[in-house]
């Protein structure tokens, strides 16, 4: 009898990783247990530690690190005597394809930041989470919070579906500039495109290391598309992207501008000068060269004492401790700028 029905596509899913662990080697069992990874989804890298967090950052109730304002206050603000800390909620509303849901989530995240965090301790400041998939709605969200002094910047994630300099995103930057709020571009995110220009790498160490590639792309895009030229009051903060790569990038961009400026005639000055005037960066994760003097040389090459602002990245595993992260070789005046003055000036604090 001839076959009547052939099903050529059947999917089977493990109920959880526990379903699979009996079939893993001891190494991979330990890896899965330590990382707390869930059943793999597309494009996923287990983050070495569960929730990519310090192992001591889990609140006593066992919930997600960074979910308990009181515990975070004690473990971070009180422990290190931090005066003000800026919250960057990494709820990836922009990853949702349902824009209505994403916009509702965007508002919910900002309400939660205001009411559960900023209201609980005057040292917290918020960042306005926006949905980069819907720049018009994001602009309205920025306007909604613009007069609330608890929010001090607008937050985007560096890995996006398109470079942020492109005109589709301009409403976000215009609204931020109008509100006098810097736009922070933070490590992470992801669009419908591979996380590197060469496709998907295999390992988390690669994912984590080459994040700077996305920062370079966004910075060059913002400059070349004329965002800074159109909005001279706009300030952009590169958050958790490192900074040692910046001098080489600016040398290359400045050189190219000299020969290719006719392609982007709205750029009427050296890109490096624009960046030094309108862009800032946070310190964590500090690059750690064997010779700390080399880091000072990099700072000298950037030649902008206002450029760097200290950050810890709490509660993540690559946390930088305030009392240990900055090399001793950094002169006292610059150290003070990095630890407090530059941020106070940019965000209007203190």
């Amino acid at each position, binding site marked *: 009898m001839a076959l009547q029905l052939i099903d050529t596509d059947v999917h089977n899913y493990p109920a959880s990783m526990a379903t699979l662990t009996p079939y893993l*080697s*001891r*190494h*991979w069992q*330990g890896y899965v247990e*330590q990382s707390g990874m869930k059943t793999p989804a597309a494009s996923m890298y287990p983050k*070495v*530690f569960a929730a990519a967090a*310090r*192992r*001591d950052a889990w609140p006593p109730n066992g919930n997600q690190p960074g979910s308990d304002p009181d515990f975070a206050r004690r473990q971070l603000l009180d422990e290190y005597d931090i005066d003000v800390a800026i919250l960057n909620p990494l709820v990836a509303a922009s990853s949702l394809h349902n824009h209505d849901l994403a916009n509702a989530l965007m508002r919910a995240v900002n309400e939660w930041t205001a009411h559960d965090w900023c209201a609980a301790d005057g040292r917290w400041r918020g960042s306005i989470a926006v949905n980069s998939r819907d720049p018009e709605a994001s602009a309205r969200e920025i306007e909604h919070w613009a007069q609330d002094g608890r929010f001090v910047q607008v937050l985007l994630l560096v890995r996006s579906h398109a470079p942020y300099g492109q005109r589709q995103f301009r409403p976000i930057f215009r609204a931020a500039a109008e509100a006098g709020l810097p736009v922070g571009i933070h490590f992470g995110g992801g669009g419908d495109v591979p996380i590197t220009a060469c496709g998907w790498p295999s390992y988390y160490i690669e994912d984590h290391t080459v994040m700077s590639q996305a920062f370079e792309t966004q910075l060059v895009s913002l400059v070349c598309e004329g965002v800074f030229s159109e909005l001279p009051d706009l300030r952009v903060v590169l958050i958790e992207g490192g900074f040692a790569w910046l001098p080489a990038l600016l040398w290359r961009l400045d050189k190219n501008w000299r020969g290719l400026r006719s392609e982007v005639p709205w750029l009427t000055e050296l890109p490096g000068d624009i960046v030094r005037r309108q862009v800032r960066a946070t310190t964590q994760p500090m690059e750690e060269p064997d010779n700390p003097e080399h880091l000072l040389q990099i700072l000298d090459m950037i030649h902008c004492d206002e450029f760097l602002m200290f950050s810890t990245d709490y509660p993540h*595993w*690559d*946390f*930088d*401790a305030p*009392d*240990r*992260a900055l090399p001793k070789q950094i002169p006292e005046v610059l150290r003070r700028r990095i630890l407090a003055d530059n941020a106070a000036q940019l965000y209007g604090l203190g």
Partner: protein
Amino acid sequence: MRRSSMAWVDVAATSLADGVHHVELDDGRGIALLRRGGQWWALRDVCPHQGARLSGGTMRGRVAPCLPGEEISLNDEEPVLVCPWHGWEFDVVTGRSLADPCRQRVRSYDVKVEAGRVWVQA
């Protein structure tokens, strides 16, 4: 190099569970006390990198060297302590960092079990 003047200090009962524990000496020094069955090790409870408390980390075998694509295995004969912050690994016997053994080291202490108690020379 250990100082001969260091005294043996009673730090715990031998009923302590397998794993990594924090104990504090009278002078305030913290010790990460590690147990696996009948084996005990003690390290200073401060990571030399950024100061994390190492006793919040995990102990496992050293990942054995291999080539890309080969099976990755653990060598339980060479236990390491993994820092709870940045994941730096330390040899529990010598306290040396696996990544940079010549320059990064956490102090290690001798341990003995006597009269139902665990003693650390510190």
